[in-house]
C-alpha cells in the first residue's frame, strides 16, 4: 500500500550542528532505548515462532499460544493479538494441507471463482471446511502477488498458477499438491 508522504520532522533538515544544550533544555521526549533489549528481540520473533508451531500442530490451538508466549516473553493475550491478525496464521484446523485460493481482482478476472468452485467439487467441501480425512482445507486469500499467473493459489510453500479451472485439471492439480506435500514431509 502507499506509504504516506513524510514531511520533515521539526524544521528544515541540514548540516548545521545542534545548538549547545543545557540540562534545562532537555529533549521533550524521554530518551528512548538505544538498542532493542532482549525482551524486544524476543518479541520480534513472535510470527516466526507461531509459524513453526503451526507447522508442527496444523493450527494454533490455545496451547500453542501459551507456548509461544513463554518463548517470546509475552502474555497469551499479547500473542493472540498477533495470532488472530495474519492471513497465514490459523486459529482453527484447516487441514494438513491448506489450499489458499486468491480471490483478488486479477485472479477474479481470470477465473478465480471457477477455480474455487471446482476445488470445492473435487475436494467435496465448501470454502472454510476440511476434508473428512483431515488432509485438505480450502480457504480464500487476498492477492498473492502473482497476478501474472492468475488464477493462482498457495499450497504449502508454493504459489501455483495459472491454474486451469475444469474439474479434470483441478483433480490433477490436487493430486500434485498432495504428492508434493508428502515428498516435502519425507525430506524433513
Amino acid at each position, binding site marked *: 500500500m*502507499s*506509504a*504516506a508522504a*513524510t514531511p520533515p520532522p521539526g524544521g528544515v533538515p541540514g548540516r548545521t550542528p545542534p545548538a549547545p544544550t543545557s540540562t534545562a533544555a532537555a529533549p521533550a521526549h524521554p530518551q528512548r532505548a538505544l538498542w532493542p533489549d532482549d525482551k524486544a528481540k524476543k518479541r520480534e520473533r513472535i510470527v516466526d515462532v*507461531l509459524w513453526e508451531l503451526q507447522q508442527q500442530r496444523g493450527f494454533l490451538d490455545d496451547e500453542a499460544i501459551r507456548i509461544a508466549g513463554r518463548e517470546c516473553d509475552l502474555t497469551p493475550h499479547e500473542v493472540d493479538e498477533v495470532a488472530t491478525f495474519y492471513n497465514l496464521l490459523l486459529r482453527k484446523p484447516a487441514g494438513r494441507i491448506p489450499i489458499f485460493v486468491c480471490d483478488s481482482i*486479477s485472479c477474479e478476472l481470470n477465473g478465480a471463482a471457477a477455480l474455487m468452485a471446482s476445488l470445492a467439487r473435487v475436494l467435496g467441501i465448501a*470454502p472454510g471446511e476440511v476434508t473428512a480425512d483431515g488432509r485438505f482445507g480450502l480457504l*480464500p486469500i487476498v492477492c498473492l502477488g502473482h497476478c501474472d499467473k492468475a488464477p493462482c493459489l498457495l499450497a504449502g510453500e508454493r504459489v501455483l498458477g495459472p491454474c486451469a479451472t475444469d474439474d479434470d485439471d483441478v483433480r490433477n492439480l490436487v493430486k500434485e499438491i498432495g504428492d508434493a506435500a508428502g515428498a516435502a514431509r519425507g525430506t524433513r
Partner: protein
Amino acid sequence: MPPVLLAARADAGHAATLASYRDAGGYRALDTALRQRTPEELIQQVKDSGLRGRGGAGFPSGAKWGFMLAPEGRDGGGRYLVCNADEMEPGTFKDRVILEQNPHVLIEGMAIASYAMSMTDAFIFVRREYFEQTRRLEAALAEARDAKLLGANILGTEFSLDIHVHRSGGRYICGEETALLNAFEGRRANPRAKPPYPAVSGLWGRPTTVHNVETLACVPGVVEHGAAWFKGLAKNPEGAGTKLYGGSGAVEHPQLIERPIGTTLRELLGEMGGVKGGRKLLGVIPGGASTAFITPEHLDTPMDFDPLVKVGTRLGTGTFIVLSENDCPVKATLNLQRFFARESCGFCTPCRDGLPYGVDLLARLERGEAQREDLDRIDHLFQIIGPNSFCALAAGAAEPVKGLYAHFRDILEAHVTGRGCPFGREPAELAHA
C-alpha cells in the same frame, strides 16, 4: 533503454548470482559510494536524481534521506533502514520479480542508502507468501556476506552493516509504514499516529527510514551513472528513471517489464499483446487497487506520477489491471472493496464499519437490489470514510469508487434501471458469501 533494475536478470528460473550481477556492473556503485562520496554528497545526488518512492506515494526519496541528517538521532544508538517488501496491493507483483531475479540490486541499494543515512542496521520486511523469493534473497545475502559486501568493514572501509530478513504473516496493512513497524516489533499491526514520523521515532523508537523494494533498487544506478543520467532515462520531462510496469487482468500476456518512466499505457499494453482475446478495452486501474479507473481516452497519458494525477488518478505501484468490454467495473470495484474490508485492521470505526457497508451496497447494486438513492449513498460513503479514518487504507479504497463514478455513470445507472448487472454473467458469490 539500458535496463537498470533487472540488468543482471537470469535467463529463467534462477536469480542472478553474485558473479552475474558483478559481470553486469554490480557493486561498483557501492565501491564508489563508500570510497569516493560523503553521505551528504550521496543524499544530494539522490535529491538531484528526482527519484520518487515506488511504493505508491511517490514521495521524493532524496528529501526522505535528508530527514536523517537531523542531529537529534545521532546519539550513538540504533538507526535503521527498513525495506518494505510486504507487497500486497492487489494487481502488484513488481517487488516479487526483483527478489526473484535480481536480489543483489536491492542489497546494494540498501547498503548505499544505509551508508548515506548512517544506519546501524538494515532490515527487509517480506510477506511470508514469498517463500521462494525469500530463499533467493537469503542466498544472495549469504553470497554478499561471504564476499565482504556486508558485515564488518565492507570492502575494507570503516563502514559496517548487516541486512536482516523479517518474515511477516501476510496482512495488507503491514505495507503502511507505521503498521509495518508495529508488525516488525511483534505487535498487532495497527498503524501508529503521525507525528512522530519514523525519521524521528520508528523501529524501537529509533530514527528509521522505510523504503519500497523498487525505490532502493534504483539507488545503485543513480550512484554509478549520476543524477543526470537517471533523470534522462525518463520519457517525459518531469519524470526520472525507469519503472517496473506490470500488466494483469484482461491482458493477453500478463507480465512485468522495465521501461522508461512515462511510457504510455498504449505502448505497454501493446507490448503485452493487448487486451485478452482481442476484446475491446473498457478501463484500466493504473497502479494497484487503490488507484482510480482510467478509460481508453487516457491511453496516451505518460505512466508517471504527475501526468496521471492530471487525469484524476495516480501511478500507485505502476502495475495496472485491465478490464475488457466483458468485465463489469461495478463487479471489479466490489471485488476491490471486499479486499479492503477484509484487510482493514479494525482499529478505527470509519474504516472497520464503513468498508463493509460499502461492500454491502455495491453487492446489492450488482445483484439488482439497489434503489436509485443507493447510488448517492455509495458515492457519499466513500467520500467521507477516507478523511475520517486513521490511516490511508480507506482513502485508498475510495479511489476506485471515485473512478467508477467519474467514468462509468452509465453503467452504474444501468445496474439500477436494469435491476442488476448488465454484463450478463453470474455474480461469483461462492467464495465470499
